[in-house]
């Protein structure tokens, strides 16, 4: 296809992506270098029947003028990246000097907002992803062994957790684990502890979120593996049987190697999706015990009266770097494949 025709076909799609995906990334980098204007104070004399008082106030008019001239704020360089809300190197240095043991050090670093969110995001990503793959694999094996007639309905119900809006799915579970909800009260009876609440302790909140994550994504892994199972070569399977391989050995040495590329695909998609975990934290109202990088950005922008653009932008840039590091193995591999072909 000549370049010109190609361009004509792809231009609308490219323009939209450049304007609303690539440009915002540039805008985020730009915004992260600036910081909100300092407040302009004026002294106002208030004279009442009981004498005069001098009051310091924010000069709204002057602020307005500054904002309209420089909407992004004043230049701050990389200052926002290093402040206590983000990388906080100074604070880490202090903590390093102050603490004696590694456990202490890590515990205190975990209290810094950025690291708290980073640790949760990484934990979520690297715990949920393998669990999803394993659970999805076993569901696929189980469903594959069912008689044909009930496969359809089983697949239908299995798809639901994935199709339903993440925020809504987490709300549905949140109401059930409420101490007055069915799962919450069942757990209280089970552990014989009437004060048990999944919302109270950080550990239980983390576990709840992980369970939600696995519940939400397992159908995806299941469907992909299930489709893969339909294509496992019959010949190989039969020769394994002739060679006397047991049922488990057949799964271990024929099915799993055949499905391995699919597992890589699922892992890639899940790493991308789990790294941006956000909705469950809103749905489970878990922000006190667990925040993710995406949640930090959201709360900077929507939490206070005036959005903290600089802070949100700095977190965004750091998150983007995280995404690129996460994708690095895939990108390197694709690059190698491409060069080998060329």
């Amino acid at each position, binding site marked *: *296809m000549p370049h010109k025709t190609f361009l004509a076909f792809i231009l609308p799609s490219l323009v*939209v992506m450049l304007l609303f*995906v*690539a440009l915002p990334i540039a805008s985020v980098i730009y915004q992260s270098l600036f910081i909100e204007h300092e407040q302009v104070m004026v002294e106002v004399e208030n004279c009442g029947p009981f004498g005069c008082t001098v009051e310091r106030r924010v000069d709204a008019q002057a602020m307005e003028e500054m904002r309209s001239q420089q909407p992004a704020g004043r230049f701050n360089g990389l200052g926002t990246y290093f402040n206590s809300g983000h990388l906080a190197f100074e604070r880490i240095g202090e903590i390093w000097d102050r603490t004696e043991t590694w456990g202490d050090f890590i515990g205190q670093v975990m209290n810094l907002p950025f690291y708290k969110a980073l640790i949760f995001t990484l934990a979520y990503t690297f715990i949920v992803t393998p669990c999803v793959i394993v659970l999805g694999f076993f569901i696929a094996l189980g469903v594959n062994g069912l008689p044909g007639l009930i496969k359809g309905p089983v697949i239908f119900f299995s798809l639901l957790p994935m199709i*339903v809006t993440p925020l809504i799915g987490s709300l549905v579970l949140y109401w059930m684990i409420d101490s007055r909800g069915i799962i919450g009260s069942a757990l209280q009876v089970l552990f014989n502890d009437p004060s048990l609440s999944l919302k109270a302790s950080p550990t239980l909140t983390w576990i709840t979120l992980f369970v939600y994550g696995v519940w939400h994504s397992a159908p995806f892994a299941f469907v992909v593996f299930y489709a893969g199972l339909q294509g496992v070569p019959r010949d190989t399977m039969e020769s394994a049987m002739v060679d006397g391989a047991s049922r488990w050995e057949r799964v271990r040495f024929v099915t799993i190697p055949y499905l391995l590329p699919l597992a890589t695909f*699922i892992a890639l998609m899940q790493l991308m999706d789990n790294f*941006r975990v*956000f909705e469950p934290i809103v749905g489970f109202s878990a922000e006190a015990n667990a925040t993710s990088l995406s949640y930090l950005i959201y709360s900077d922008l929507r939490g206070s009266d005036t959005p903290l653009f600089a802070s949100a932008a700095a977190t965004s840039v750091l*998150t983007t770097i995280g*995404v690129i590091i996460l994708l690095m193995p895939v990108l390197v591999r694709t690059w190698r494949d491409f060069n080998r072909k060329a």
Partner: protein
Amino acid sequence: MARSANAKPLPLLALSIAFIVIWLIAAAFPFVWTTWGSFKVEPDFFSRSDWTNAITGTQTIRQTGSPFTGGGYDGAWIEQEFWKAVINTAIVTLSVVVISLTLGTLGGYALARSGFRYTFWILIAALIFRAMPHVTLASGYLLPFFELGIWGYLPTTIIVLVAINQPFTLWMLHSFFLSIPKDLDESAMVDGCTRFQAFRLAVIPVMWPGVVTTGLFSFLLAYNDFTVTSMLLTQENQTMVPKISSFLGSTQAEGKVMYAVAAVVSAIAPLFVLVLFFQRQIVSGLTAGAVKG
């Protein structure tokens, strides 16, 4: 012979069926329970005394005289004006699906038919864009949109969702068009069609299965989005999902949780119908990417 060799031993069969049953309960029960509970009053759905109240509706009978009540739906749809959010969602999802499919089919077709190096780079860029957390992008939009005065309107949100959706649409349709034989449009061009005429006359008639599948996923993205819609829309332009989340803040305090429960069930219903009719396409769409690697 083959049958008996394939037949599972009884304990394994029992184990695997038990496992699937447990999974099915985990997957479907929350929705059944919430739908059932949405027709009860709050003291039943969140029962302090006895969980069986949620099934029998003891408090519901005491308060309303019948075991089922539409009170939650009434409050959500009429009092809290959930119907406005439903209309907004319909506008947003429909526009997003139509626009992203139009742009996506053109782009995906071009990527599938052009053999030049830059197609590879466009696809890789699309993959990176696909991985970007949406909230990161939203923080890039917010300030420029405030400055331009286009923040808060439905068209702005629609075009942003189209853009976020575009990488996925391109990948999906690109691999779909690769599966349509090149001969089809090339023979049309030999007969004297231009590239665009060949696309219109030879490719469009056979592309619908792929387009329907891709369209389903565009629909899901637009329908399920919370990040972008909650950041870019004003209170009165809100779609369903951010509306439900704003219910939570205001109604939890007033003891009107049932409004939110009813709204949640209302939002799940269309998805339920969607899976019912398009199960096959959803399954094939999920696996399409995997097969290509």
